[in-house]
């Protein structure tokens, strides 16, 4: 039984996704932004459609095969205060990071999840999991640091030039360029540090970031399509009610969608909320793939 207090939560102090920014995140705007940045924009593929009466079967299949989006996500991030950090407005970048990392690990076909707050999955050390710096995206989306960023902005920036790896990684890759993951609390699986502008990024960072770009997006335009994507192992990122999160598991018996919130806690959205916020959601279908999984940045 899911604690009702964790369903349809609206964070009073979260202002990383203000209404004026959210208003610009329509599905059409997202599609255009992704295409302009060079990504493949795909309509919801028919073969991913699952009739609602089969959702439970599909969910059971995911339980058996460990093929939920959550199974490809191996960390929580924390944009909030604590650990020497302060509450940030980076939510759209944190939401994106989970979607990207899910797609990356799904392609590699290593189940490194589900994520557990403040814990590291030992399997990650033997995988090809890479953790990206949320700050490396947000710093360009909002150079003023405060006020948040649009889903569309993060999507466009990440598609155009990629993300810099976090200073903390599940294993040693020897990246030439890394950046703190957040100005917030971070944690065992995410580094934290001071605010930096893009001009303060490590010199030559683009050479590393370009290896961590999405290639293709799917934009659902209905609640049912959102559920179908999740049932097929695709994470779906949504911006809604001042906050941005990424769905990683459909709780079929409860009729709610789970998301690893960027505050070291799992929360849930009801069907009503999902329906109200489908516009402006996205799923990363594929990412750039390295020439060698052991050397993801070459």
């Amino acid at each position, binding site marked *: 039984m899911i604690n009702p207090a964790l369903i349809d939560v609206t964070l009073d102090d979260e202002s990383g996704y203000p209404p004026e920014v959210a208003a610009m995140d329509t599905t059409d705007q997202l599609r255009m932004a992704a295409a302009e940045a060079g990504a493949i924009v795909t309509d919801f593929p028919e073969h991913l459609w699952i009739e609602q009466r089969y959702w439970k079967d599909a969910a059971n299949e995911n339980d058996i*095969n460990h093929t939920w989006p959550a199974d490809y996500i191996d960390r929580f991030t924390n944009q909030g205060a604590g650990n020497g950090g302060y509450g940030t407005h980076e939510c759209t970048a944190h939401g994106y990071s989970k979607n990207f990392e899910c797609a990356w690990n799904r392609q590699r*076909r*290593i189940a490194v999840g589900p994520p557990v707050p403040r814990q590291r999955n030992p399997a990650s050390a033997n995988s090809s999991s890479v953790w990206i710096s949320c700050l490396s995206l947000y710093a360009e989306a909002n150079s003023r640091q405060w006020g948040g960023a649009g889903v569309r902005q993060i999507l466009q920036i990440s598609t155009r030039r990629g993300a810099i790896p976090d200073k903390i990684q599940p294993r040693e890759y020897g990246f030439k360029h890394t950046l703190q993951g957040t100005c917030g609390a971070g944690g065992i699986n995410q580094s934290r540090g001071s605010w930096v502008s893009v001009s303060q990024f490590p010199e030559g960072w683009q050479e590393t970031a370009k*290896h961590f770009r999405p*290639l293709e997006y799917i934009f659902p335009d209905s609640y049912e399509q959102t559920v179908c994507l999740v049932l097929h192992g695709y994470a779906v990122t949504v911006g809604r009610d001042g906050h941005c999160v990424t769905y990683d598991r459909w709780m079929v018996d409860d009729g709610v969608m789970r998301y690893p919130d960027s505050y070291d806690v799992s929360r849930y959205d009801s069907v009503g909320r999902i329906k109200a916020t489908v516009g402006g959601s996205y799923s990363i279908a594929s990412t*750039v793939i390295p020439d060698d999984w052991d050397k993801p940045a070459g």
Partner: protein
Amino acid sequence: MPSRNIRRFAFAILLFAAFVSGQEISIVGPSSPVSPGSFEFVKVTGLSQTDLDASVVGVVPDQGIMVMPASKAGVQPIVFALLVSKDATPGKRSFTVSRNAWWKDFEAAVVLAQSGAKAEHAKALLGLAAEWKPQYPIVALSVPVEVGGVPPFVPPVVDPVDPNKPQPPPSPNKPNRLTYVYEKDQGNVPKPVAFALQRLNVDSGGSVVASEFEEDTVNAFGQVPAQYKLALEAARSAGLPALVIQSGNVIIRVVKNPTTEAHVLEAAK
């Protein structure tokens, strides 16, 4: 060289052929005239450009293949195929090359004539793709087939394992890379296949790279990722989706359209 691989895998009749989306094969009469034209045929010792001789030197019950006949660098990529005959027995076979047999755009039909066995005895096609360029390894494809009626394979007799005796190094042909290659518009990776790949990754402790690859995916430079080039070529030759099993840069076999966990795990053995 060829003979080593032939011995190793089994009986075979060397044909000049191509894969035709599956294991369909057409056979033309043995008397078809041949004109070498400008085509550069990969030479096999003792053969002319119009006739092929290949020795059937053994049998395997469920699959076979691997012939490396190329002897000249710089020839164009070429595809051979092995026609498995139910009544194949060790011995020498002769074939005549049909004029229509020449390779066309990598998608031509099988075109060699088999003079040593009746066409109706042809059971399945095994394929071998040899991209013969100095800088590339030869790529071999093997497609599991049914070859009912052939003499049973007799495994070599080996001594029981002595725990105190140093064990030989792992077989160089032990699979260490499995790739499910697919085209996204044709459907997703079947979940049991995904699970099997995930299981192999975990169970191997990292010594096996089991993954999926959508054929249009690229690296940061817009190119086919180096680690998937061989698998992609092999899978496309066999027809997508396909599971490509490699040992390093050698392709051990290709399994067409696997759908179950067992398909993958069996192929990984």
